[in-house]
């Protein structure tokens, strides 16, 4: 037993010596993403994006370490520790899912290492979070409803916590906009019929319907609404921006509106939108490597982690050398003071109290036409 322990310790020391930094001026970006398990389709895109990141920012060489946490928060924490202690990471990218990202947050704050989470989590201290919150997107929907003189709107959402959250967000923004929310109907992802809920919605005769669901299940209520002859406008959230949704919904989706990240419709954005150039600059090499249509918003979140680091690096380098605590704190301060940093998915303006940094520029509304998503401009 003792022998065994000794061996492990010896190996660990040997490994950490091996892994020690090759060069004092090298920036180390440690990433832990969910590249296997249920959230793998998200994590793999992020991993692909990290692999595309340049090996040099300015004159500073960058070393990337990518670990897989398999969707397990415990493993994400061990990965984060390994990244900080063994690889001496200056910044952590990840993780993919909400629980994993929250779990890593503790390590980030303890070790004073900036963390750029790729999932929407409450971010403060050393933690930053890049994706759009549901509230930001719902706000955009309500703005569009108001512009189009919608007075009454029905809510039809998932019967789960996401449905509750989005309903609360919808109420929050609808009331000041003078929109009356007339129903709070719910359905399950696996429901075989939503006829009853749709009848309830139609009884209320709303000007618009907000279908708060993600992926292919969101199509069923809209198909039923069309079959029952509903003529008003339907709205979706960005969780439907994918091909399977269009395949399942077919003609019933024509003319409906959804929120989206600018990245997912980058090619059709106006040239005056600063995000367009940044998004295309990332999409081209990405799709050249992984196939046409493969780049998605998750890849963009990871990429924007790089954009933020790149923008913050000169300020941090002015204060300390990579690999030191002083550098990590300086990097955090620099990211926190990011102003109008343009990424592939949004424009970030962070402050000490806002570690998400997004505004209305991080969303576009798209209309579904000819079985495709097209930005409304």
């Amino acid at each position: 037993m003792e022998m065994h322990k000794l061996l492990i310790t010896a190996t660990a020391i040997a490994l950490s010596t091996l892994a020690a930094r090759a060069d004092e001026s090298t920036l180390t970006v440690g990433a832990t993403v969910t590249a296997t398990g249920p959230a793998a389709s998200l994590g793999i895109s992020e991993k692909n994006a990290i692999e595309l990141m340049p090996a040099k920012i300015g004159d500073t060489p960058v070393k990337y370490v990518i670990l897989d946490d398999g969707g397990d928060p415990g493993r994400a924490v061990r990965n984060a520790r390994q990244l900080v202690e063994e690889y001496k990471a200056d910044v952590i990218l990840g993780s993919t899912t909400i629980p994993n990202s929250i779990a890593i947050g503790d390590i980030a704050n303890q070790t004073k290492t900036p963390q750029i989470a790729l999932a929407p989590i409450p971010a403060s201290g050393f933690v930053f979070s890049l994706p759009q919150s549901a509230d930001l997107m719902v706000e955009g929907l309500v703005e569009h409803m108001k512009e189009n003189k919608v007075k009454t709107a029905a809510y039809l959402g998932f019967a789960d916590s996401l449905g509750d959250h989005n309903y609360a967000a919808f109420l929050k923004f609808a009331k000041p906009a003078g929109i009356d929310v007339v129903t709070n109907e719910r359905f399950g992802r696996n429901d075989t019929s939503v006829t009853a809920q749709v009848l309830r919605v139609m009884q209320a005769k709303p000007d618009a319907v907000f279908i708060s669901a993600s992926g292919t299940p969101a199509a069923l209520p809209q198909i039923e609404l069309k079959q029952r002859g509903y003529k008003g406008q339907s709205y979706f959230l960005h969780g439907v921006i994918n091909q399977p949704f269009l395949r399942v919904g077919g003609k019933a989706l024509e003319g409906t509106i959804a929120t989206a990240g600018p990245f997912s419709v980058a090619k059709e954005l106006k040239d005056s939108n600063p995000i367009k150039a940044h998004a295309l600059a990332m999409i081209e090499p990405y799709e050249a490597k992984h196939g046409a249509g493969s780049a998605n918003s998750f890849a963009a979140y990871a990429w924007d982690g790089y954009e933020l680091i790149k923008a913050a690096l000169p300020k941090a380098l002015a204060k300390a050398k990579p690999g030191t605590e002083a550098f990590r704190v300086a990097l955090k301060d620099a990211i926190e003071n990011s102003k109008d940093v343009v990424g592939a998915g949004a424009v970030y303006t962070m402050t000490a109290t806002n570690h998400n940094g997004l505004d209305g520029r991080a969303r576009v509304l798209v209309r579904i036409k000819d079985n495709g998503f097209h930005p409304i401009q």
Partner: protein
Amino acid sequence: MDTQIFSILLEDGIASGAIYALLALTMVLVFATTRILFVSQGEFVTFSGLSFASFQLGIAPQIVWLLAVLALVVTALEVVSALRLGQGKRVPWLVAIHLALPLAVVGACLWLAPLKPPVLVQAALSVALVTALGPAVYRLAFEPVANASVRTLFVIAIALHFILQGFGLLFFGAEGYRVDPLIDLDVSLGATVLKGQAMLVLATLAVLTAALYVFFEYTLLGKALRATAINRIGARIVGIKTPLAGRIAFTMSAFIGAIAGILAVGSTTLYYDSGFLIGLKAVLGAICGAMLSYPLAIAGAIGVGILETFSAFWVSAYTEAVVFSALIPVLLWLSLYAMPSEEGQEL
């Protein structure tokens, strides 16, 4: 609520209830002949519905490979046990029925899928594919432990559910599919519009129920199955092969489940994991018939469908809770009349 809404809800409830009823029939059939509460029945529904959807896209469903592998394993087991018993003569017959037949289905699927055959051919292929899975699943999962307690068999059925659902995710992916209804014909009856697809489901239920009645009342095989259901030991004494009865029950239940899948995917979106809830609601229906009575199981399943639709109308966030709580009074009622059986004591 006015009459129009009432009639629309009723129609919708009966249409989903009819799908549950088809499955409830198979639940009773399987439970009576094999004592298995086959909760993974719903997987047959999703497999066939999703296979049908992928045929419509011109792609052979990958589940054919599962069938091919299962057929190989079953054949190997059958041939080995036949040789051990010194019944070498039976080998060609065993290979024909356990290997050649399923592989013919696999071949037909692979060959016809890219040609985009007529819709009915696609439906027939999907049904054949899933029907062939039924006996193979029974042979591998249940036949070796056919005499185990009801509880053991139930646990195996649950394990099987997770395995099959995993295969569903592997073969069909996480996203849902739906296809155009087989019949796109709506009949106006006064203020009510009858959906063609709903009528088709009801007609199928009626035809299959009648066919099952004829099978059990007037054919030797049907009577043998009934005998197995009433008393397994007695049935064996009079020369009925109870393993065969199990395989036949599973073939029939996979067949009916597959047909339910073809009908369901025309009126709703199916996912790899849709089958579980559909199957569970069918179990509710079957329990209304005390797992014994076909007519009561059908009535119970349609009742579940109607209850589901109306509770979705009144309290949409709690639909499942309402539906499954309805089980409690039914169980209380049944417990008043339940006779402690030999099986019961064994538990």
